[in-house]
Protein backbone atom coordinates (compact mmCIF):
# COMPACT_ATOMS: atom_id res chain seq x y z
CA UNK A 1 0.00 0.00 0.00
CA UNK A 2 1.42 3.33 -1.02
CA UNK A 3 2.21 5.77 1.81
CA UNK A 4 1.11 3.13 4.29
CA UNK A 5 3.53 4.29 6.96
CA UNK A 6 2.25 7.84 6.69
CA UNK A 7 -1.37 6.73 6.81
CA UNK A 8 -0.71 4.63 9.90
CA UNK A 9 0.93 7.63 11.58
CA UNK A 10 -2.11 9.73 10.74
CA UNK A 11 -4.45 6.97 11.95
CA UNK A 12 -2.68 7.03 15.30
CA UNK A 13 -3.73 10.65 15.70
CA UNK A 14 -7.10 10.51 13.95
CA UNK A 15 -9.08 7.26 13.45
CA UNK A 16 -10.70 8.46 10.25
CA UNK A 17 -7.46 7.56 8.51
CA UNK A 18 -7.78 4.01 9.85
CA UNK A 19 -10.55 3.39 7.35
CA UNK A 20 -8.17 3.87 4.46
CA UNK A 21 -6.27 0.90 5.85
CA UNK A 22 -9.53 -0.93 6.46
CA UNK A 23 -10.70 -0.51 2.86
CA UNK A 24 -7.39 -1.75 1.54
CA UNK A 25 -6.94 -4.74 3.84
CA UNK A 26 -10.49 -5.95 4.42
CA UNK A 27 -10.80 -7.95 1.15
CA UNK A 28 -7.35 -9.46 1.60
CA UNK A 29 -7.94 -10.44 5.20
CA UNK A 30 -11.41 -11.77 4.55
CA UNK A 31 -10.16 -13.92 1.66
CA UNK A 32 -7.40 -15.33 3.86
CA UNK A 33 -9.58 -16.03 6.87
CA UNK A 34 -12.41 -17.42 4.78
CA UNK A 35 -10.09 -19.79 2.94
CA UNK A 36 -8.68 -20.97 6.26
CA UNK A 37 -11.93 -21.33 8.25
CA UNK A 38 -14.19 -22.20 5.29
CA UNK A 39 -17.06 -20.91 7.31
CA UNK A 40 -18.67 -17.59 6.53
CA UNK A 41 -19.81 -16.61 10.04
CA UNK A 42 -16.58 -17.73 11.63
CA UNK A 43 -14.62 -15.76 9.06
CA UNK A 44 -16.70 -12.66 9.72
CA UNK A 45 -16.14 -13.03 13.48
CA UNK A 46 -12.39 -13.40 13.10
CA UNK A 47 -12.13 -10.47 10.67
CA UNK A 48 -14.27 -8.28 12.92
CA UNK A 49 -12.19 -9.15 15.96
CA UNK A 50 -8.93 -8.54 14.07
CA UNK A 51 -9.95 -5.08 12.87
CA UNK A 52 -11.37 -4.12 16.27
CA UNK A 53 -8.15 -5.15 17.97
CA UNK A 54 -6.11 -3.31 15.34
CA UNK A 55 -8.15 -0.16 15.87
CA UNK A 56 -7.83 -0.41 19.64
CA UNK A 57 -4.12 -1.10 19.60
CA UNK A 58 -2.90 0.92 16.65
CA UNK A 59 -0.87 3.09 19.05
CA UNK A 60 1.25 0.04 19.81
CA UNK A 61 1.88 -0.77 16.16
CA UNK A 62 5.55 -0.32 15.30
CA UNK A 63 6.55 -0.55 11.66
CA UNK A 64 10.07 -1.59 12.61
CA UNK A 65 8.80 -4.81 14.14
CA UNK A 66 6.11 -5.49 11.53
CA UNK A 67 7.21 -4.74 8.01
CA UNK A 68 3.77 -3.53 7.00
CA UNK A 69 0.53 -2.80 8.73
CA UNK A 70 -0.88 -5.74 6.79
CA UNK A 71 1.50 -8.25 8.30
CA UNK A 72 0.61 -6.96 11.77
CA UNK A 73 -3.12 -7.17 11.02
CA UNK A 74 -2.83 -10.66 9.55
CA UNK A 75 -0.91 -11.84 12.57
CA UNK A 76 -3.74 -10.60 14.80
CA UNK A 77 -6.23 -12.53 12.68
CA UNK A 78 -4.03 -15.63 12.60
CA UNK A 79 -3.59 -15.60 16.38
CA UNK A 80 -7.31 -15.19 16.77
CA UNK A 81 -7.91 -18.25 14.62
CA UNK A 82 -5.34 -20.28 16.56
CA UNK A 83 -6.91 -19.21 19.86
CA UNK A 84 -10.25 -20.47 18.65
CA UNK A 85 -8.68 -23.76 17.63
CA UNK A 86 -7.25 -24.20 21.11
CA UNK A 87 -10.60 -23.44 22.71
CA UNK A 88 -12.30 -25.95 20.41
CA UNK A 89 -9.68 -28.56 21.27
CA UNK A 90 -10.56 -28.32 24.93
CA UNK A 91 -14.17 -29.22 24.33
CA UNK A 92 -14.05 -31.47 21.29
CA UNK A 93 -11.02 -33.56 20.47
CA UNK A 94 -11.39 -35.18 17.09
CA UNK A 95 -9.00 -36.26 14.38
CA UNK A 96 -10.13 -33.76 11.79
CA UNK A 97 -7.93 -30.84 10.85
CA UNK A 98 -7.79 -27.87 13.16
CA UNK A 99 -9.27 -25.47 10.68
CA UNK A 100 -12.05 -27.84 9.80
CA UNK A 101 -12.94 -28.04 13.46
CA UNK A 102 -13.31 -24.30 13.51
CA UNK A 103 -15.55 -24.26 10.48
CA UNK A 104 -17.07 -27.68 10.91
CA UNK A 105 -17.54 -27.82 7.19
CA UNK A 106 -17.47 -30.53 4.62
CA UNK A 107 -15.94 -30.11 1.18
CA UNK A 108 -19.35 -29.84 -0.33
CA UNK A 109 -20.20 -26.90 1.90
CA UNK A 110 -17.47 -24.73 0.33
CA UNK A 111 -19.81 -23.27 -2.22
CA UNK A 112 -21.99 -21.81 0.51
CA UNK A 113 -19.16 -19.53 1.46
CA UNK A 114 -19.67 -17.48 -1.66
CA UNK A 115 -22.32 -14.84 -2.15
CA UNK A 116 -25.35 -15.99 -4.03
CA UNK A 117 -24.95 -13.58 -6.92
CA UNK A 118 -21.87 -15.44 -8.18
CA UNK A 119 -22.62 -17.73 -11.09
CA UNK A 120 -22.77 -21.45 -10.57
CA UNK A 121 -19.76 -22.14 -12.81
CA UNK A 122 -17.64 -19.80 -10.77
CA UNK A 123 -18.78 -21.44 -7.55
CA UNK A 124 -17.88 -24.84 -8.93
CA UNK A 125 -14.45 -23.64 -9.88
CA UNK A 126 -13.85 -22.23 -6.42
CA UNK A 127 -15.15 -25.36 -4.76
CA UNK A 128 -12.86 -27.48 -6.88
CA UNK A 129 -9.80 -25.48 -5.91
CA UNK A 130 -10.63 -25.34 -2.21
CA UNK A 131 -11.31 -29.05 -2.12
CA UNK A 132 -8.05 -29.78 -3.85
CA UNK A 133 -6.26 -27.66 -1.28
CA UNK A 134 -7.50 -29.96 1.47
CA UNK A 135 -4.95 -32.53 0.38
CA UNK A 136 -2.17 -30.08 1.32
CA UNK A 137 -0.69 -29.59 4.77
CA UNK A 138 -1.98 -26.73 6.90
CA UNK A 139 1.21 -24.75 6.29
CA UNK A 140 1.05 -25.26 2.54
CA UNK A 141 -2.59 -24.19 2.48
CA UNK A 142 -1.78 -21.11 4.47
CA UNK A 143 1.08 -20.10 2.17
CA UNK A 144 -1.16 -20.44 -0.87
CA UNK A 145 -3.94 -18.49 0.80
CA UNK A 146 -1.66 -15.63 1.74
CA UNK A 147 0.23 -15.56 -1.54
CA UNK A 148 -2.57 -15.94 -4.09
CA UNK A 149 -5.84 -15.22 -2.27
CA UNK A 150 -4.58 -12.27 -0.22
CA UNK A 151 -1.76 -11.23 -2.55
CA UNK A 152 0.75 -10.72 0.23
CA UNK A 153 4.45 -10.44 -0.48
CA UNK A 154 6.96 -13.04 0.67
CA UNK A 155 8.27 -10.52 3.17
CA UNK A 156 4.83 -10.09 4.69
CA UNK A 157 4.07 -13.83 4.64
CA UNK A 158 7.38 -14.49 6.37
CA UNK A 159 6.43 -12.10 9.15
CA UNK A 160 2.90 -13.49 9.45
CA UNK A 161 3.92 -17.15 9.57
CA UNK A 162 7.23 -16.55 11.33
CA UNK A 163 9.14 -18.51 8.73
CA UNK A 164 12.12 -17.71 6.54
CA UNK A 165 11.25 -16.62 2.99
CA UNK A 166 13.39 -19.38 1.52
CA UNK A 167 11.39 -21.96 3.43
CA UNK A 168 8.17 -20.39 2.19
CA UNK A 169 9.36 -20.53 -1.39
CA UNK A 170 10.10 -24.24 -1.08
CA UNK A 171 6.73 -24.84 0.63
CA UNK A 172 4.90 -22.97 -2.09
CA UNK A 173 6.71 -24.83 -4.83
CA UNK A 174 5.85 -28.16 -3.26
CA UNK A 175 2.22 -27.15 -2.68
CA UNK A 176 1.81 -26.07 -6.29
CA UNK A 177 3.20 -29.41 -7.44
CA UNK A 178 0.70 -31.32 -5.30
CA UNK A 179 -2.19 -29.17 -6.44
CA UNK A 180 -1.22 -29.65 -10.06
CA UNK A 181 -1.27 -33.39 -9.59
CA UNK A 182 -4.67 -33.32 -7.85
CA UNK A 183 -6.24 -30.97 -10.36
CA UNK A 184 -4.46 -32.64 -13.28
CA UNK A 185 -3.49 -29.29 -14.70
Amino acid at each position, binding site marked *: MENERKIVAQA*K*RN*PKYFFELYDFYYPKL*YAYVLSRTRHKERAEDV*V*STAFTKALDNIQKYNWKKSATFGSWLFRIARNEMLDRVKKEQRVNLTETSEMERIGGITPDASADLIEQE*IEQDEKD*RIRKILNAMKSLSETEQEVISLKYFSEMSYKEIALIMQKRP*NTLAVLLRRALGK*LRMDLKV
Partner: protein
Amino acid sequence: MKFSNNNNDRRLIDELKSVGEALRNVNETHRESLRGRLHLAAPKYENKKSGFRFPKLGLALIPTLSVAAVAALAIISAAYRPTYYSAEPFLSDDTMEMATESSIISMDSDILDATSYSETTGLGAQTFKSRFLRNIGRHDVPQGQVDEYRKTNGDFFEQDIRFNLLSKEKDALSEVTDIYTRLDGYIEQSRAHNTDSFTITGRIPKNNLSALRNELNEFVGSDNFYLESTNSYNRVKDVIVVDEKIQEVEDAIIELETLLASETNATIIKELNEELIQHRAFLRERTETKDAIIERVEYVDVSITITTIESWINADSYWELNQAISGYDQPGFGERILINVAYVITRIILFLSYTFWILIPLGIWLGMKKRRNTLFSELD
Protein backbone atom coordinates in the same frame (compact mmCIF):
# COMPACT_ATOMS: atom_id res chain seq x y z
CA MET B 1 16.55 -18.83 -4.80
CA LYS B 2 14.55 -18.35 -7.98
CA PHE B 3 12.08 -20.74 -9.58
CA SER B 4 11.09 -20.72 -13.18
CA ASN B 5 7.48 -21.75 -13.54
CA ASN B 6 6.41 -23.84 -16.48
CA ASN B 7 3.16 -23.32 -18.35
CA ASN B 8 1.23 -25.72 -16.11
CA ASP B 9 2.37 -23.87 -13.01
CA ARG B 10 1.40 -20.59 -14.65
CA ARG B 11 -2.07 -21.85 -15.39
CA LEU B 12 -2.47 -23.11 -11.83
CA ILE B 13 -1.22 -19.84 -10.38
CA ASP B 14 -3.61 -17.88 -12.60
CA GLU B 15 -6.40 -20.13 -11.46
CA LEU B 16 -5.52 -19.59 -7.78
CA LYS B 17 -5.33 -15.85 -8.32
CA SER B 18 -8.75 -15.76 -9.92
CA VAL B 19 -10.17 -17.71 -6.95
CA GLY B 20 -8.47 -15.25 -4.65
CA GLU B 21 -10.05 -12.37 -6.52
CA ALA B 22 -13.46 -13.97 -6.15
CA LEU B 23 -12.92 -14.54 -2.42
CA ARG B 24 -11.80 -10.95 -1.93
CA ASN B 25 -14.88 -9.56 -3.59
CA VAL B 26 -17.46 -11.43 -1.53
CA ASN B 27 -19.42 -10.34 1.53
CA GLU B 28 -19.84 -6.64 0.89
CA THR B 29 -22.60 -6.60 3.52
CA HIS B 30 -20.31 -7.61 6.33
CA ARG B 31 -17.68 -5.19 5.16
CA GLU B 32 -20.06 -2.24 5.45
CA SER B 33 -21.56 -3.34 8.76
CA LEU B 34 -18.12 -3.81 10.30
CA ARG B 35 -17.12 -0.38 9.04
CA GLY B 36 -20.11 1.09 10.83
CA ARG B 37 -19.26 -0.68 14.07
CA LEU B 38 -15.65 0.44 13.89
CA HIS B 39 -16.80 4.01 13.33
CA LEU B 40 -18.75 3.83 16.55
CA ALA B 41 -15.75 2.45 18.42
CA ALA B 42 -13.29 4.91 16.98
CA PRO B 43 -13.97 8.25 18.77
CA LYS B 44 -12.75 7.03 22.14
CA TYR B 45 -9.15 7.90 21.25
CA GLU B 46 -9.71 10.53 18.58
CA ASN B 47 -6.96 13.13 18.21
CA LYS B 48 -4.84 11.28 20.70
CA LYS B 49 -1.27 12.42 20.31
CA SER B 50 1.34 9.76 19.91
CA GLY B 51 4.01 11.67 21.90
CA PHE B 52 7.60 10.68 22.56
CA ARG B 53 8.62 7.51 24.20
CA PHE B 54 11.00 8.25 26.98
CA PRO B 55 13.80 5.77 26.10
CA LYS B 56 14.01 7.09 22.55
CA LEU B 57 13.86 10.67 23.71
CA GLY B 58 16.62 9.94 26.18
CA LEU B 59 18.80 8.38 23.51
CA ALA B 60 18.32 11.39 21.29
CA LEU B 61 19.07 13.76 24.15
CA ILE B 62 22.38 12.15 25.15
CA PRO B 63 24.41 13.31 22.13
CA THR B 64 22.56 16.61 21.99
CA LEU B 65 23.35 17.34 25.62
CA SER B 66 26.92 16.16 25.04
CA VAL B 67 27.42 18.65 22.26
CA ALA B 68 25.83 21.33 24.42
CA ALA B 69 28.23 20.42 27.24
CA VAL B 70 31.21 20.77 24.91
CA ALA B 71 29.92 24.13 23.75
CA ALA B 72 29.46 25.21 27.36
CA LEU B 73 33.03 24.18 28.16
CA ALA B 74 34.26 26.21 25.20
CA ILE B 75 32.29 29.25 26.34
CA ILE B 76 33.52 28.92 29.93
CA SER B 77 37.07 28.55 28.70
CA ALA B 78 36.71 31.65 26.55
CA ALA B 79 35.27 33.54 29.50
CA TYR B 80 38.23 32.46 31.58
CA ARG B 81 40.50 34.21 29.06
CA PRO B 82 38.43 37.27 28.18
CA THR B 83 40.99 39.32 26.26
CA TYR B 84 44.58 38.72 25.46
CA TYR B 85 47.60 40.79 24.95
CA SER B 86 48.52 41.29 21.34
CA ALA B 87 51.84 42.41 19.94
CA GLU B 88 50.14 44.14 17.02
CA PRO B 89 49.57 47.55 18.74
CA PHE B 90 53.29 47.95 19.14
CA LEU B 91 53.87 47.34 15.49
CA SER B 92 51.49 50.19 14.68
CA ASP B 93 53.80 52.57 16.48
CA ASP B 94 55.95 54.27 13.83
CA THR B 95 59.20 54.14 15.70
CA MET B 96 58.81 50.59 16.81
CA GLU B 97 57.70 49.42 13.43
CA MET B 98 60.75 50.83 11.76
CA ALA B 99 63.06 49.52 14.42
CA THR B 100 61.55 46.09 14.41
CA GLU B 101 61.45 45.74 10.67
CA SER B 102 64.97 46.97 10.20
CA SER B 103 66.14 44.51 12.79
CA ILE B 104 64.43 41.62 11.15
CA ILE B 105 65.45 42.57 7.66
CA SER B 106 69.07 43.07 8.55
CA MET B 107 69.09 39.76 10.38
CA ASP B 108 67.53 38.07 7.45
CA SER B 109 70.03 39.63 5.08
CA ASP B 110 72.82 38.51 7.34
CA ILE B 111 71.98 34.90 7.96
CA LEU B 112 69.12 34.71 10.43
CA ASP B 113 65.97 32.86 9.52
CA ALA B 114 63.53 35.77 9.70
CA THR B 115 60.42 33.60 9.47
CA SER B 116 61.17 31.53 12.51
CA TYR B 117 62.33 34.64 14.28
CA SER B 118 59.10 36.51 13.72
CA GLU B 119 57.06 33.51 14.86
CA THR B 120 58.94 33.10 18.07
CA THR B 121 58.87 36.79 18.94
CA GLY B 122 55.14 37.05 18.42
CA LEU B 123 55.47 39.49 15.59
CA GLY B 124 53.81 37.20 13.08
CA ALA B 125 50.16 37.82 12.22
CA GLN B 126 49.03 34.33 13.23
CA THR B 127 50.57 34.26 16.67
CA PHE B 128 47.61 35.36 18.76
CA LYS B 129 44.75 33.41 17.27
CA SER B 130 42.50 31.25 19.39
CA ARG B 131 44.22 28.31 20.95
CA PHE B 132 41.25 26.49 22.47
CA LEU B 133 41.62 22.71 22.23
CA ARG B 134 44.66 23.02 19.98
CA ASN B 135 46.75 24.54 22.79
CA ILE B 136 44.49 23.82 25.70
CA GLY B 137 47.41 23.44 28.09
CA ARG B 138 48.36 27.09 27.65
CA HIS B 139 46.70 30.33 28.42
CA ASP B 140 47.66 33.81 27.41
CA VAL B 141 48.66 36.75 29.54
CA PRO B 142 45.45 38.55 30.47
CA GLN B 143 44.97 42.00 29.09
CA GLY B 144 44.56 43.37 32.60
CA GLN B 145 48.01 42.21 33.61
CA VAL B 146 49.54 43.82 30.53
CA ASP B 147 47.61 47.03 31.13
CA GLU B 148 48.92 47.15 34.68
CA TYR B 149 52.43 46.62 33.42
CA ARG B 150 52.06 49.45 30.92
CA LYS B 151 50.55 51.71 33.57
CA THR B 152 53.58 51.18 35.75
CA ASN B 153 56.35 51.13 33.17
CA GLY B 154 54.93 52.87 30.13
CA ASP B 155 54.93 51.86 26.52
CA PHE B 156 58.23 53.51 25.65
CA PHE B 157 60.13 51.44 28.14
CA GLU B 158 58.43 48.34 26.84
CA GLN B 159 59.17 49.21 23.25
CA ASP B 160 62.74 49.97 24.14
CA ILE B 161 63.08 46.58 25.74
CA ARG B 162 61.59 44.90 22.71
CA PHE B 163 63.97 46.75 20.45
CA ASN B 164 66.91 45.86 22.64
CA LEU B 165 65.87 42.26 22.72
CA LEU B 166 65.90 42.15 18.97
CA SER B 167 69.01 44.24 18.39
CA LYS B 168 70.85 42.40 21.16
CA GLU B 169 70.55 39.19 19.27
CA LYS B 170 71.63 40.90 16.11
CA ASP B 171 74.75 42.15 17.87
CA ALA B 172 75.44 38.72 19.20
CA LEU B 173 75.07 37.20 15.79
CA SER B 174 77.41 39.77 14.26
CA GLU B 175 79.97 39.21 16.96
CA VAL B 176 79.98 35.45 16.57
CA THR B 177 80.10 35.76 12.78
CA ASP B 178 83.15 38.00 13.11
CA ILE B 179 84.85 35.48 15.37
CA TYR B 180 84.39 32.74 12.76
CA THR B 181 85.65 35.01 9.98
CA ARG B 182 88.70 36.09 11.94
CA LEU B 183 89.67 32.45 12.39
CA ASP B 184 89.49 31.72 8.62
CA GLY B 185 86.08 30.18 9.00
CA TYR B 186 82.59 31.02 7.83
CA ILE B 187 78.93 30.64 8.91
CA GLU B 188 76.87 27.95 7.19
CA GLN B 189 73.56 28.14 9.06
CA SER B 190 71.95 30.26 11.73
CA ARG B 191 68.61 29.81 13.44
CA ALA B 192 66.85 31.66 16.26
CA HIS B 193 64.88 29.47 18.68
CA ASN B 194 63.15 32.31 20.48
CA THR B 195 63.93 35.76 21.77
CA ASP B 196 66.59 34.38 24.05
CA SER B 197 68.71 31.92 22.14
CA PHE B 198 70.01 31.04 18.71
CA THR B 199 72.19 28.38 17.16
CA ILE B 200 75.00 28.99 14.69
CA THR B 201 76.73 26.32 12.67
CA GLY B 202 80.04 27.39 11.14
CA ARG B 203 83.19 25.85 9.69
CA ILE B 204 86.76 26.68 10.76
CA PRO B 205 90.16 25.06 10.28
CA LYS B 206 90.78 22.40 12.86
CA ASN B 207 93.91 24.15 14.10
CA ASN B 208 91.80 27.18 15.03
CA LEU B 209 89.29 25.24 17.12
CA SER B 210 90.90 26.07 20.43
CA ALA B 211 91.16 29.72 19.41
CA LEU B 212 87.44 29.74 18.52
CA ARG B 213 86.59 28.25 21.88
CA ASN B 214 88.64 30.86 23.67
CA GLU B 215 87.14 33.74 21.72
CA LEU B 216 83.59 32.50 22.23
CA ASN B 217 84.12 32.12 25.95
CA GLU B 218 85.56 35.58 26.08
CA PHE B 219 82.57 36.96 24.14
CA VAL B 220 79.85 35.31 26.20
CA GLY B 221 81.64 36.13 29.44
CA SER B 222 81.80 39.81 28.66
CA ASP B 223 78.34 40.34 27.22
CA ASN B 224 75.75 38.54 29.37
CA PHE B 225 75.43 35.48 27.20
CA TYR B 226 76.38 31.94 27.90
CA LEU B 227 77.33 29.05 25.72
CA GLU B 228 74.55 26.51 26.04
CA SER B 229 76.01 23.78 23.90
CA THR B 230 78.83 23.15 21.46
CA ASN B 231 79.06 20.32 18.97
CA SER B 232 81.83 19.79 16.46
CA TYR B 233 82.27 17.49 13.48
CA ASN B 234 85.53 16.99 11.55
CA ARG B 235 85.64 17.92 7.89
CA VAL B 236 88.50 17.84 5.35
CA LYS B 237 88.75 20.31 2.51
CA ASP B 238 91.33 21.06 -0.25
CA VAL B 239 92.66 24.60 0.09
CA ILE B 240 95.06 26.61 -2.10
CA VAL B 241 97.50 28.37 0.17
CA VAL B 242 98.27 31.78 -1.32
CA ASP B 243 102.00 32.55 -0.99
CA GLU B 244 102.15 36.21 -0.25
CA LYS B 245 105.93 36.10 -0.59
CA ILE B 246 105.68 35.66 -4.36
CA GLN B 247 103.85 38.90 -4.67
CA GLU B 248 106.34 40.62 -2.35
CA VAL B 249 109.30 39.43 -4.44
CA GLU B 250 107.66 40.51 -7.65
CA ASP B 251 107.11 43.96 -6.16
CA ALA B 252 110.73 44.10 -4.99
CA ILE B 253 112.03 43.15 -8.45
CA ILE B 254 110.04 45.96 -10.07
CA GLU B 255 111.41 48.38 -7.47
CA LEU B 256 115.04 47.25 -8.02
CA GLU B 257 114.73 47.55 -11.79
CA THR B 258 113.38 51.11 -11.37
CA LEU B 259 116.33 52.01 -9.13
CA LEU B 260 118.84 50.49 -11.57
CA ALA B 261 117.45 52.54 -14.42
CA SER B 262 118.02 55.79 -12.55
CA GLU B 263 121.32 54.89 -10.70
CA THR B 264 124.77 56.08 -12.02
CA ASN B 265 127.03 54.97 -9.19
CA ALA B 266 128.80 51.79 -10.32
CA THR B 267 129.12 50.31 -6.82
CA ILE B 268 125.46 50.75 -6.03
CA ILE B 269 124.49 49.38 -9.44
CA LYS B 270 126.55 46.27 -8.71
CA GLU B 271 124.83 45.74 -5.33
CA LEU B 272 121.40 46.26 -6.85
CA ASN B 273 122.14 43.78 -9.62
CA GLU B 274 123.21 41.13 -7.09
CA GLU B 275 120.10 41.70 -5.10
CA LEU B 276 117.99 41.55 -8.25
CA ILE B 277 119.57 38.24 -9.25
CA GLN B 278 118.78 36.80 -5.82
CA HIS B 279 115.15 37.94 -6.02
CA ARG B 280 114.70 36.54 -9.51
CA ALA B 281 116.17 33.21 -8.43
CA PHE B 282 113.82 33.13 -5.42
CA LEU B 283 110.86 34.05 -7.64
CA ARG B 284 111.76 31.33 -10.14
CA GLU B 285 112.03 28.80 -7.35
CA ARG B 286 108.66 29.74 -5.74
CA THR B 287 106.86 29.85 -9.11
CA GLU B 288 108.15 26.42 -10.07
CA THR B 289 106.87 24.89 -6.81
CA LYS B 290 103.59 26.82 -6.67
CA ASP B 291 101.45 23.86 -7.74
CA ALA B 292 102.62 21.87 -4.77
CA ILE B 293 101.37 24.48 -2.36
CA ILE B 294 97.75 23.15 -2.67
CA GLU B 295 97.22 21.16 0.47
CA ARG B 296 94.45 19.36 2.35
CA VAL B 297 93.28 21.32 5.35
CA GLU B 298 91.29 19.72 8.12
CA TYR B 299 88.19 21.74 8.96
CA VAL B 300 85.74 21.40 11.80
CA ASP B 301 82.02 22.12 11.70
CA VAL B 302 81.13 23.78 14.96
CA SER B 303 77.53 24.21 16.07
CA ILE B 304 76.99 26.47 19.05
CA THR B 305 73.88 27.60 20.89
CA ILE B 306 74.04 30.91 22.65
CA THR B 307 71.44 32.02 25.18
CA THR B 308 70.79 35.47 26.56
CA ILE B 309 71.16 35.89 30.29
CA GLU B 310 68.05 37.59 31.62
CA SER B 311 69.94 39.60 34.19
CA TRP B 312 71.06 42.14 31.65
CA ILE B 313 67.78 43.90 32.38
CA ASN B 314 65.48 44.04 35.39
CA ALA B 315 64.40 40.43 35.85
CA ASP B 316 60.74 41.10 36.68
CA SER B 317 60.20 43.46 33.78
CA TYR B 318 62.00 41.13 31.47
CA TRP B 319 59.87 38.18 32.52
CA GLU B 320 56.62 40.08 32.13
CA LEU B 321 57.64 41.34 28.75
CA ASN B 322 58.81 37.92 27.73
CA GLN B 323 55.42 36.54 28.64
CA ALA B 324 53.74 39.22 26.59
CA ILE B 325 55.97 38.68 23.59
CA SER B 326 55.62 34.92 23.75
CA GLY B 327 51.86 35.33 23.96
CA TYR B 328 51.25 32.97 26.83
CA ASP B 329 52.48 31.74 30.14
CA GLN B 330 52.16 28.38 31.78
CA PRO B 331 49.15 27.75 34.03
CA GLY B 332 49.62 26.75 37.64
CA PHE B 333 49.51 23.18 38.90
CA GLY B 334 45.86 23.28 39.93
CA GLU B 335 44.87 24.94 36.70
CA ARG B 336 46.74 22.31 34.72
CA ILE B 337 44.87 19.50 36.47
CA LEU B 338 41.51 21.18 35.88
CA ILE B 339 42.30 21.90 32.25
CA ASN B 340 43.47 18.35 31.63
CA VAL B 341 40.42 16.85 33.31
CA ALA B 342 38.15 19.11 31.26
CA TYR B 343 40.10 18.17 28.15
CA VAL B 344 39.75 14.44 28.76
CA ILE B 345 36.03 14.77 29.54
CA THR B 346 35.54 16.83 26.40
CA ARG B 347 37.28 14.21 24.30
CA ILE B 348 35.23 11.39 25.82
CA ILE B 349 32.01 13.28 25.24
CA LEU B 350 32.98 14.04 21.68
CA PHE B 351 33.90 10.40 21.09
CA LEU B 352 30.57 9.22 22.48
CA SER B 353 28.72 11.75 20.36
CA TYR B 354 30.52 10.66 17.23
CA THR B 355 29.89 7.04 18.14
CA PHE B 356 26.19 7.64 18.53
CA TRP B 357 25.65 9.74 15.46
CA ILE B 358 27.89 7.86 13.07
CA LEU B 359 28.73 4.33 14.17
CA ILE B 360 25.37 3.21 15.56
CA PRO B 361 23.24 4.40 12.59
CA LEU B 362 25.87 2.96 10.27
CA GLY B 363 25.72 -0.38 12.06
CA ILE B 364 21.93 -0.42 11.98
CA TRP B 365 21.89 0.47 8.31
CA LEU B 366 24.42 -2.22 7.44
CA GLY B 367 22.50 -4.77 9.50
CA MET B 368 19.22 -3.92 7.82
CA LYS B 369 20.83 -3.99 4.42
CA LYS B 370 22.37 -7.40 5.02
CA ARG B 371 19.09 -8.80 6.37
CA ARG B 372 17.15 -7.40 3.45
CA ASN B 373 19.59 -8.81 0.94
CA THR B 374 19.64 -12.28 2.43
CA LEU B 375 15.91 -12.66 2.99
CA PHE B 376 13.92 -10.79 0.45
CA SER B 377 15.83 -9.46 -2.48
CA GLU B 378 15.71 -12.62 -4.56
CA LEU B 379 12.22 -13.67 -3.65
CA ASP B 380 10.06 -10.57 -3.90
